């Protein structure tokens, strides 16, 4: 902690500076509604994708059901803020969404995390579809037509703060003792078990933490867009989150940030192409897998520390 205080301070300053920069640009009018919308989408995608990266990249559990947990968070926010129309209600709804999604993740995880690889992917996909199917048939969620007129408490500032918070939590988790345990499970779970690591516990911990962040993102999504429907949280959504993780590099949090920003901008640019957008998306996914299966950054991270060391070394020589 003491050793790294410089970098911690630097990151804090960068976060605050980023906030002030966006705020100033909005005040000046450089960032209009359109770009602000894009920034919020990018932010929500970052929260979703870093959470999924924890599950896929760090604990090695291939989950295809992220949109299911996002749906839980979104519906919790929609239902609660419609009845408790205040900032406090929004906060409570985010927390309720997280708790609900943690409970569901525990159930799903207990059942499916014994499977591996492809089977786990299909099982989590099935679990997410079950969640969606249930939402589709409940009265309180408005059935297949979804919910409208959700009060908008989520602004770009809320998203920004939550992106910072979830990233700090996730990064600290990954770099802690538990994070090393999770990586050990990813590399070889039989060997990890032989070393006395409770593999089920750590797999479940990563899965649950990922699900909780997905619920937050879902709540923000519902509150910002003000309308949601079960069809928003289908297989497609899970896969587009997966694309961000894979493009950035499985196992690289900064890679995920980079990919979310690149794809967010690309998405806005391709908006005019309509259906062709998804074709390009799919083609990009295949080409990345064939030519650079490790993604933009692989499992490396961009870090201030290395950057700093890089410069100081240059000065010395």
């Amino acid at each position, binding site marked *: 902690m003491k050793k790294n205080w410089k970098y911690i301070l630097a990151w804090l300053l960068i976060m605050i500076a980023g906030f002030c920069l966006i705020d100033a640009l909005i005040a000046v009018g450089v960032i209009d509604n359109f770009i602000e919308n894009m920034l919020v989408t990018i932010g929500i995608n970052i929260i979703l994708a870093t959470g999924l990266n924890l599950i896929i990249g760090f604990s090695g559990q291939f989950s295809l059901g992220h949109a299911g947990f996002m749906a839980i968070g979104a519906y919790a926010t929609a239902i609660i803020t419609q009845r408790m129309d205040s900032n406090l209600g929004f906060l409570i709804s985010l927390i309720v969404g997280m708790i609900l999604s943690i409970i569901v993740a525990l159930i799903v995880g207990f059942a499916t995390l014994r*499977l591996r690889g492809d089977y786990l992917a299909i099982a989590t*996909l099935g679990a997410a579809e079950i969640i969606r199917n249930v939402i589709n048939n409940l009265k309180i969620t408005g059935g297949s037509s979804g919910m409208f007129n959700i009060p908008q408490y989520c602004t770009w500032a809320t998203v920004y703060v939550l992106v910072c918070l979830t990233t700090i939590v996730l990064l600290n988790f990954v770099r802690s003792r538990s994070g090393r345990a999770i990586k050990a499970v990813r590399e070889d779970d039989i060997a990890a078990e032989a070393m006395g690591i409770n593999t089920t516990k750590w797999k479940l911990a990563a899965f649950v933490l990922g699900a909780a962040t997905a619920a937050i993102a879902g709540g923000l999504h519902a509150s910002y867009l003000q309308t949601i429907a079960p069809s928003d949280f289908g297989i497609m959504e899970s896969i587009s989150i997966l694309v961000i993780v894979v493009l950035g590099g499985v196992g690289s949090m900064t890679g995920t940030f980079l990919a979310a920003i690149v794809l967010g901008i690309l998405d806005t640019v391709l908006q005019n192409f309509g259906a062709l957008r998804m074709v390009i998306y799919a083609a990009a*996914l295949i080409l990345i897998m064939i030519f650079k299966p490790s993604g933009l950054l692989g499992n490396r991270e961009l870090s201030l520390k290395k950057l700093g060391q890089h410069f100081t070394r240059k000065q010395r020589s």
Partner: protein
Amino acid sequence: MQTVLQQVINALSLGAVYALLALGYTMVYGIIKLINFAHGDIYMLGAFWAYYVINFWHLNFIGALLSSMVIGALSGVVIEYFAYRPLRNSPRIAVLITAIGVSFLLENGMSYLFGANPRSFPQVIKQFNFNIGGVLISNIQILILATALILMVLLQIIIQKTKMGRAMRAVSVDPEAAELVGVDVNHTISFTFALGSALAGAAGVLIGMYYNSIDPLMGMTPGIKAFVAAVLGGIGSIPGASVGGFLIGILETFFQSIGLSAYKDAVVYLVLIIILLFLPSGIFGKNTREKV
């Protein structure tokens, strides 16, 4: 009793289509350990091709079925060659993501080219019902069952009796050893994709006739259900896939008939999770243990 029999008939014809799809999944998984997500979309391609040839070339049922099978086989081979073959030695997750990408590409490509709206499948055979003791059986249902059974028997003959079938079985047991004794592995994998995808193409035509409606996204849900069927029967096992397909058809029809049709998809996925947990090798699968 009559309603039960009626439901059994419906379940069997739906199950036959799932079984045809599941066969393709099980063969591909058996040979290169890949869940071919694009399989459901080959089924969609088959249905669209039949729609096209019946409407514009005025082909009859047999012609449409055979040409759809050829188109299915071709697209399967092309997909394998361009998307899966370069990744033969990559981690399995990379291949799985590529398969998802191919599936997306086919779905969105088709909706981009032809529009995402459902269209009605041409009535190439006039539908009429036989009434056997109060149970209605349509000629289409008989046709679906008969076609599916004939194709399954043909497949079994190809796999058990021909040289190519023997090569397929050899590669699925141990690709390296098969190569050592002179089997062309790439060729065999292509052939497997062709066979499986031809069956998917045929299933597409049959479902088009059964539901009278096709759209570019029709492949996704049946595709995953067929995979569930393959897992249920024991992935890698040919008879298992057929039985699994029929079981899924029966299950779905049962939940529909007791008034829970809104939850029929959820039930199929729930069955999948339960099967994976308690019987991971399926009904006909071999139990393998992981080596430490």
